[in-house]
């Protein structure tokens, strides 16, 4: 049967699913009155859909897909600014491939590239740095996008550029942080969240303590998880056990990779290069306090916002999203992707209308990609 062949360790998965079912019954979770568990990280969302975990799990457990896909929460205005920078003469604009197809108001980066802008997909900011070394007469801009897992890489690259005295390298910093949007969601009276599965690779950098406020101030459990299916099931079980015992704590299921206090070198580099913006705009979620980073003054020579006078600080806020797009409602778990009027009609992975359709970590793209597998599991 499908189930057995899908899991590398089917016996372990089966045992965990059974244990979850027992716990869920014990705490009275039902289809009508489900326990809502948010997986924050887009990698977890992808894994849940890939294995159909939301279908295999006890019906009283509902996964709410969190805002942890940096591409999905990237506002259109930021994409417009990327295009604007990329289309300036003399610029080589470098970006992770994930950002290429995110729609802007006028166009995406991939369209700008096809129209002649020098936009290059790179695997690492180190490659952007190397491009700057090889093209001293061009300005090489790297699009700094992503959560705490990616932030150290741009911070260390800026430090390296400073050491080398490169004058033609800058970062268009749109880095965001994980804990703040969770606080915003917990403060949203429309959200019912009973517990969280915390991101693994983000926590490898920041450790588990930045989440302490979730247990302390909101009395909700959070378990940092690996992204293999059995990791996710085990973490779900750990959340349920806490709920059953009336506890709320931050626990670490992924201790084999995530140190309690994170990675000190990464944290030092982030603190040296970046500071918090008072607030930052998230697609679908709006402005969130202290949720974005900008480059500190002392590294201003490597700040594309300073060099080009464009960016979040300079723009008008909250440019409206495309009409008929339900990304915000899907992102906050108020709507399923399939309930969006555009799903599969005006919005597909080939021609995404909303950002949730762009990356395999976006809930809509994941729904679309695994529709067949889901039908089989149902």
């Amino acid at each position, binding site marked *: 049967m499908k189930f057995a062949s899908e899991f590398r360790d089917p016996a372990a998965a089966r045992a965990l699913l059974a244990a979850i079912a027992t716990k869920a019954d014990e705490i009275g979770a039902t289809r009508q009155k489900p326990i809502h568990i948010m997986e924050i990280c887009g990698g977890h969302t992808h894994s849940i859909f890939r294995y159909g975990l939301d279908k295999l799990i006890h019906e009283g457990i509902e996964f709410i897909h969190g805002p*942890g896909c940096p591409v999905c929460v990237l506002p259109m205005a930021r994409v417009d600014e990327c295009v604007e920078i990329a289309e300036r003469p003399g610029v080589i604009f470098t970006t992770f491939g994930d950002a290429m197809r995110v729609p802007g108001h006028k166009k995406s980066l991939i369209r700008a590239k096809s129209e002649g802008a020098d936009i290059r997909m790179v695997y690492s900011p*180190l490659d952007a740095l190397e*491009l700057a070394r090889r093209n001293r007469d061009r300005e090489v801009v790297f699009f700094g996008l992503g959560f705490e*897992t990616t932030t150290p890489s741009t911070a*260390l690259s800026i430090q390296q550029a400073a050491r080398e005295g490169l004058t033609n390298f800058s970062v268009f910093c749109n880095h965001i942080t994980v804990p703040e949007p969770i606080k915003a969601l917990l403060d949203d009276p429309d959200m019912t969240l009973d517990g969280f599965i915390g991101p693994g690779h983000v926590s490898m950098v920041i450790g588990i303590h930045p989440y302490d406020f979730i247990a302390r101030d909101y009395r909700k459990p959070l378990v940092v998880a690996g992204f293999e299916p059995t990791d996710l099931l085990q973490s779900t079980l750990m959340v349920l056990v806490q709920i059953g015992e009336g506890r709320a704590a931050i626990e670490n299921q992924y201790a084999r990779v995530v140190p309690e206090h994170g990675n000190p070198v990464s944290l030092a580099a982030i603190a040296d290069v970046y500071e918090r913006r008072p607030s930052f705009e998230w697609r679908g979620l709006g402005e969130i306090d202290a949720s974005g980073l900008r480059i500190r003054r002392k590294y201003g020579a490597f700040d594309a916002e300073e060099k080009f006078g464009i960016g979040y600080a300079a723009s008008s806020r909250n440019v409206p999203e495309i009409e008929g797009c339900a990304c915000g409602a899907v992102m906050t778990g108020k709507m399923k992707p399939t309930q969006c009027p555009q799903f599969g009609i005006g919005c597909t992975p080939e021609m995404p209308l909303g950002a949730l359709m762009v990356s395999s*970590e976006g809930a809509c793209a994941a729904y679309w990609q695994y529709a067949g597998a889901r039908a089989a599991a149902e």
Partner: protein
Amino acid sequence: MCLGIPGRITAITDAGRLMAMAEVSSVRREVNVACIAGNDIDALVGKWALIHVGFAMSIIDEEEAASTLEALRELGEAQETLEQMAHSQEALQ
């Protein structure tokens, strides 16, 4: 972009800049090891690390590396990362 991929450090290429050669699914790629170097960068040779956008972020054991790689393959993320590495080489030209 959000998930690291396991690679084995095979040589230190530039101790001053904390750069090393890593083998990721038999693709060789230079990576920065600042986050895991500690006091003895040479001790990294032979070790497995989770590599994230060109930066080794965490030392892991061989077993963890194998199971992580397998999980990434099942999600299609490993292939995607390797493609991005290849693309990036072209982009440098």
